């Protein structure tokens, strides 16, 4: 059983709430030891999927296994293999961070002493030591989120579900969270995370499933997804604003594509073959058009998302946007 090839294998999951199909025949396969990103807009069914895989919710149809164990037939085994950090904090507000972790640890079978030790270690790892004894009511959103994740790691589970782990975190805390997630995988866990942020999926995930209206509409590596919608683009800035139009004409002649002027000195050129970029630069020099800057950009996941779902995704806080 434990020789299962995948950490998660779900087939045909369907869940209906009233007349609202939250999941519609969703299938997904998550390889062991990877970070798997599930990307989708609000209401796509991300949380519903996690709840079913984490045995919190029963599907109306379909089946799923975690490391080969069926979520419906062997839920108690599945629970021993997973850690869940839900979209909304699942810790006890009236108790302190230590008290929370110790109770969860004991429930997981640790002795009081072991639970204290593990709690102290985790609080340290997550930078919560100072606040350990304070009641959670005084915790910030980010602290709560970190405590929540810490609570999911008490048993060092081989599979960890993270439902929008960074929503509402400031850029610095988000980067820390990314670091933590990468470390989990380096230590041998498998992580399934959902996000509405494309660059988060791009940065973290080994594979990405884009889900929309309860079903998987695309699944690939981040690069694969980007390649699937086409070509690279060249963004070119000329020195002299008067020459922008001339540059556009030349670019159109050379690449035989539709070149756009995006501001007074910038044009954007789709290129199928990077050799053309060199031809273009040579042509521009011959025409005595000074080039201030140029860069080749791959399509962003935003464009992938838009072209697949027809919706614009949430955009990320600028601090984290690193395009080179």
């Amino acid at each position: 059983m434990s020789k299962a090839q995948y950490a998660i294998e779900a087939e045909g999951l369907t869940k209906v709430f009233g007349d609202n199909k939250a999941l519609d025949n969703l299938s997904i396969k998550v390889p062991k030891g990877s970070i798997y990103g599930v990307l989708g807009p609000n209401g796509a069914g991300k949380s519903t999927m996690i709840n079913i895989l984490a045995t919190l919710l029963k599907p109306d149809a379909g089946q799923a296994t975690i490391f080969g164990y069926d979520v419906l037939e062997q839920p108690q085994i599945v629970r021993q293999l997973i850690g869940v950090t839900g979209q909304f904090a699942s810790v006890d507000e009236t108790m302190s961070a230590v008290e929370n972790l110790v109770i969860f640890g004991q429930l997981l079978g640790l002795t009081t002493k072991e639970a204290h030790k593990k709690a102290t270690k985790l609080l340290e790892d997550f930078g919560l030591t100072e606040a350990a004894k304070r009641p959670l009511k005084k915790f910030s959103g980010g602290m709560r989120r970190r405590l929540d994740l810490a609570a999911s790691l008490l048993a060092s589970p081989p599979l960890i579900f993270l439902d929008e782990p960074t929503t509402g975190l400031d850029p610095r805390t988000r980067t820390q969270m990314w670091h933590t997630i990468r470390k989990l995988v380096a230590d041998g866990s498998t992580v399934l995370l959902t996000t509405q942020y494309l660059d988060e999926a791009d940065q973290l995930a080994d594979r990405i499933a884009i889900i929309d209206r309860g079903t998987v509409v695309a699944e690939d590596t981040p690069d694969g997804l980007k390649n699937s919608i086409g070509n690279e683009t060249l963004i070119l800035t000329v020195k002299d604003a008067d020459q922008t139009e001339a540059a556009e004409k030349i670019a159109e002649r050379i690449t035989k594509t539709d070149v756009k002027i995006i501001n007074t000195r910038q044009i954007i050129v789709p290129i199928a073959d990077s050799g053309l970029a060199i031809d273009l630069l040579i042509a521009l020099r011959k025409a005595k058009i000074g080039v201030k800057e140029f860069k080749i950009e791959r399509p962003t996941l935003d464009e992938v998302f838009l072209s697949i779902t027809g919706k614009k995704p949430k955009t990320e806080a600028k601090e984290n946007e690193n395009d080179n």
Partner: protein
Amino acid sequence: MTTKTMAIPTNLKNHTSVKETLRQTLIMAKRGLIKIRRNPEQLADVLIQPIIFTLLFTFLFGGAIAGDIASYLPIIIPGILVQSVITGSIATGVQLRDDMDKGVFNRFRSLPIARIAPLAGALLADVLRYAIIVTLTMLMGFILGMNPTGGLFGVLAASLLVIVVGWCISWIFAFMGTIMRTSSSVTGVSMIVLMPLTFLSNAFVPVDTLPSILKAFAEINPVSHIISAVRELLAAGTIGTDFWWAIVGSLTIVAIFAPLALHAYKKKA
């Protein structure tokens, strides 16, 4: 890329043993106690009711019903004991409802623990509440001059009986807590059920003084049997048929409502 992956244990079991279940229940009870310690004002009603009720009923009805206060105390103290504990057990359902709305119950449901542990643990912690009610009411009785002729055994056995009964009855409200949407609806419905049960009993007045329909109800009312058992223990220190009826009735309640509550809890998304 070579990735190391965690080994998956092969000896995993899909059920929780009785021993583990008990251990987890105790841990959950400990959690309940921590919460009470953090938030002691939730015990306010528990502290106030026995005191107010004892004073109120004793001085208001004592003369009219039993001639004088001293002879009313053996009647009223058991009545207030049982009534306060049963009313106090509503709080179990209310708090469970509040608790289950919080995210932490989602975590409990995702842990490999017995499904009954969070419920049973919460109910177990509430034994503290009943113990406080019983102690305070007894104390009030003694201050006002109650003289339990059943001796120490009678007092202890009566206290224990009331606590056990209260715990068993709290399963009814635990069930209501799991099926109802808001904690105020739990309070409302519970009160409607409880008012006739506690007042249409032998708690405050001798059953003989009631009109015949009410009398018939008061006589079969299980609450009357519990109160009679407590009176007998306090007055004579003996265990009679009422005691056994109280125990059988209480266990029946657990047998019916614990599975119902568990089922409803499991189903809850």
